[in-house]
């Protein structure tokens, strides 16, 4: 008897488990008849662990507990629960274990594997932490599915054949994702995807608490009861009502206008994300057929307004928006298992972070180390393969370290290191530099294979990176040392140069392809000029760079 086809939505505030059977995906309920299980942990009076609704209740009553650990996935933060010290993945594992038990009770059979969703914008450390959490809970992860893609699958499977461009905006408890998809003839195709892993409904509650505390001129209380009251007030105010909040001795009246003012920076971040996704997908305002809002915090009218304005189409709340991600995960489990009912559906996803390697750039005699050279760009449909040619830095060099990085920044120290392969059989050539071809192949489920071929001999080396958890070499020391070394006084530190450099750097991470190369090249020239310290040449190159930056900003067509 095969394992049931199960999908799990592991959310910041609430989690959900769904099963795909008899041609539909449906959520499973717990003993209280609820589908949404709060991602909360608490200790009861005897010191035993409680998970879910009970834990949430205890926290609302003011007793200690753990609720927001998803944003800390992938970090080394230790969370405390009573006398216990937990890592974020351990906390998630406890929630997953509870969901697994619940599913087994409902289905009457063992559940050993599941599709688990993650925010699309989760990077390598966060995905690895999610996989670790699943392993700790006794679950094998069939696939880590991006949340907006899951929502899109749940939505897209029910649509007809006609092409549609759909924007899926997922505002959960702690994370924000936007994915733009094209649906046609049973194909669900991701065109662009971005998000913010620290922006969710809870952050709006935080903003409300901060604003209210400032207004009342008191310190914001941190207990769970107050937080629950604030959450309740936020909901009331969002739907147009008024609410009052008690802070110590003061009562603060909240209304919509004030909430908007307090949440303005968050809204700006939302806008920025949405615009980036539209740029990636090459979709303009008015180019959408549907704009769907999903996620627990999607009910906020603020989100709907922002989305409608930027997309040029009225955003609608997806029906059953609490369950849509979980159902999509279950559907993906079905797709993965080649369920006959889903034979006419195909989902293609894209790479959410650029993959590349570390190189040394040489510009007019100056050598600039640790520059990131992209090989597989963000937004490439998976499976993807690409290769680039690199040369040895010195003549007669016989070995080369090919390090694999994930990220968008120009310096590898700002990106995430995934692994490394060292080749040491490059023929010793004193007359010329040797060339090496590096090929990256990334499949649909997260396996990256690196092939390195030495051009003159044709010998190849291979490295497979499973994206689970290769232990990293301690390069932190190196990185820290370099950061300190960069603090020396230098014309670079002059304010206008620094600003231009920062701005250009940021623009590089937002662009791709030939435009990115062009900007990168000019930025390298600028850095080389700054190294020389010659004011005239710095000036000249700076003007050139300034021109390019202005042009690129105008190409992007948005105020960044």
């Amino acid at each position, binding site marked *: 008897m095969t394992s049931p086809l199960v999908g799990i939505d592991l959310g910041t505030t609430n989690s959900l488990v769904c099963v795909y059977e008899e041609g539909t995906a449906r959520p499973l309920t717990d003993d209280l008849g609820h589908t949404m299980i709060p991602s909360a942990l608490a200790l009861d009076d005897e010191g035993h662990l409680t998970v879910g609704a009970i834990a949430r209740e205890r926290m609302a009553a003011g007793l200690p507990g753990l609720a927001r650990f998803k944003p800390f996935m992938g970090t080394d933060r230790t969370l405390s629960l009573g006398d216990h010290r937990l890592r974020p993945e351990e906390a998630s594992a406890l929630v997953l274990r509870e969901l697994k038990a619940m599913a087994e009770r409902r289905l009457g059979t063992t559940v050993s594997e599941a599709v688990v969703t993650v925010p699309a914008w989760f990077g390598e450390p966060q995905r690895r932490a999610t996989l670790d959490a699943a392993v700790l809970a006794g679950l094998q992860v069939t696939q880590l599915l991006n949340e907006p893609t899951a929502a899109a699958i749940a939505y897209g499977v029910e649509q007809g*054949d006609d*092409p549609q461009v759909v924007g899926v905006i997922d505002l959960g408890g702690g994370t924000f994702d936007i994915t733009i998809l094209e649906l*046609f*003839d*049973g*194909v669900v195709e991701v065109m662009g995807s971005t998000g913010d892993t620290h922006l969710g409904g809870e952050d709006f509650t935080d903003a409300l608490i901060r604003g209210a505390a400032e207004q009342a001129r008191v310190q914001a209380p941190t207990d769970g009861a107050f937080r629950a009251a604030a959450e309740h007030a936020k909901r009331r105010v969002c739907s147009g009502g008024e609410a009052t909040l008690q802070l110590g001795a003061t009562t603060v009246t909240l209304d919509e206008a004030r909430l908007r003012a307090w949440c303005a920076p968050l809204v700006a971040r939302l806008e920025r994300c949405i615009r980036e996704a539209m740029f990636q997908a*090459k979709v303009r*305002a*008015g180019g959408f057929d549907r704009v769907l809002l999903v996620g627990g915090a999607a009910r906020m009218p603020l989100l709907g307004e922002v989305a409608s304005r930027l997309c*040029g189409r009225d955003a609608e709340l997806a029906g059953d928006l609490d369950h849509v991600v979980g159902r999509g995960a279950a559907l993906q489990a079905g797709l*993965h298992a080649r369920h006959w009912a889903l*034979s*006419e559906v*195909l989902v*293609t996803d894209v790479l959410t972070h650029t993959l590349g390697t570390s190189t040394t750039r040489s510009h007019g005699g100056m050598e600039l180390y640790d520059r990131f050279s992209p090989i597989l760009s963000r937004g*490439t*449909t*998976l*499976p*993807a*393969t*690409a*290769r680039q040619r690199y040369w040895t830095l010195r003549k007669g060099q016989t070995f080369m370290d090919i390090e694999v990085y994930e990220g968008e920044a120009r310096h590898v120290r700002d990106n995430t290191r995934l692994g490394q392969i060292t080749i040491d059989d490059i023929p010793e050539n004193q007359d010329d530099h040797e060339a090496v*071809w590096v*090929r990256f*192949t990334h*499949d*649909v*489920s997260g*396996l990256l*294979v690196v*092939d390195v*071929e030495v051009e003159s001999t*044709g*010998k*190849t*080396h*291979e*490295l*497979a990176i*499973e994206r*689970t958890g290769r232990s990293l070499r301690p390069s932190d020391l190196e990185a820290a040392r370099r950061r300190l070394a960069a603090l020396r006084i230098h014309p670079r530190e002059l304010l206008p140069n620094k600003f231009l450099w920062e701005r250009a750097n940021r623009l590089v991470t937002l662009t*791709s*392809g*030939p*435009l990115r190369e*062009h900007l990168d090249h000019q930025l390298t020239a600028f850095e080389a000029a700054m190294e020389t310290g010659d004011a*005239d040449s710095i*000036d000249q190159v700076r003007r*050139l760079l300034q*021109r*390019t930056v*202005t*042009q690129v900003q*105008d*190409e992007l*067509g948005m105020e960044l």
Partner: protein
Amino acid sequence: MTTDLVDRQQLMDSRTPAHLFGDAAHDPRSLRRAYARLAKVYRPDDDPEAFQHLRGLFEAAKEAHRRGEAPAAVEAGTTPAPRQEPDPTGPPEAARRRPPTWNKQDPAHATPKPAHDPLIDRLIAAQQSDDWHTQLRLLHLHALRLMEERPRPTAWMAVRIARHLAHHLEPVDLELLQMLLVHPRFDDAGQGEHLEHALRRASWLKAAAADPRVPDALPTELLALQEGGLPERARTLARIRDIPGDLTALLDHLEWNHPDLLSWITQACREIEEVLEGDVPALSVDDHKALRIFARPLHLPLGRNQRVLRHVFEWGTGLMCGVTVAAMGRLRSVVGTTLIVRWILHGMVNIYLKGRARGRTTSPVWSDAPRVLAQAARRLGTTPSCLARQLAPEPLDGWTPDDPLVAFQQDPASFLRCLDTPLYDRLDAQLLERP
């Protein structure tokens, strides 16, 4: 449209979207349908190599549609085949699943290189060749095209043009700026300073170019005064000093007729002087001499009389406008648009435009100008913005050139004034086609 399912070998042999999709490649809808059918057979997790190849062709065709090109002309990218399929040096490290082997084969089916945006290429080429003329024209076209497409008012577009114009001006660009200001989509977003600056510079240069007593070389050199470090600027002054003719008489003429031009020169001198008080850059003896000659006007205060005269002129213009408008009501059928009336209107509209660009009005005549303009327009039976647009001697209506590119080169001002989108697109297409 390809209705038969393509077999695997056929798929892998196809080099262009047309080969694989046939007629379906030309229509976005049929293309997607054809791709969907094939992709469900050659699925990404079953047959990654075939899917990749299919995907490459699909994306190439989609990109071609986006640009409006014929998809048959676009070919999926190819990379040279490797020499031999060598033995791997050892089993791959601890991978939970077996890594795919399909990628070791002929990499000719790798994902295609992303296509270049031709506009970016041209901008890069123009920039590298320092061909400001071409770059400027391209930017204008791009800007004005986008102004039609974007729903939002695009002041930043005009600002970018203004910034370029502020440094590299031609007299014809004055009209372009004025057109921008009256374009229905233009919205001053607090960037009036740049525009005003550019407008001012442009008008000075235009006036100087039209003045027979100002030598031809002077406006060009004045533009050069903005460029380069201080040694270069001093050398430019030296060149101005060596312009044939009576320099003293020229300076006097400038002082009375084009005080702004003179202040342009004196400002450069002031800057150099300030620096000379500190470190001494590499200035030659000649440069110092040039500096001293032009520094002379620094000691002549800009006459109070001149300022008074200018105010009188502006006030007077306002008064004359009021009188003329009243008279025009009667004289319209007889006088029509005589040169004098147009000159007055020109002056009046300039004031109005400057006031608008500045975003605020400081003297009564600024605030009166819009009202006067509106009155005049009403009397003439037109709208204020139309009137503002009709500043040039040539009429606008009924102008449909056969060859937009030639027309643009001959008379850019009139061409841009048309703001005719189809015409634009044609010109754009022509320019982008050029090698």
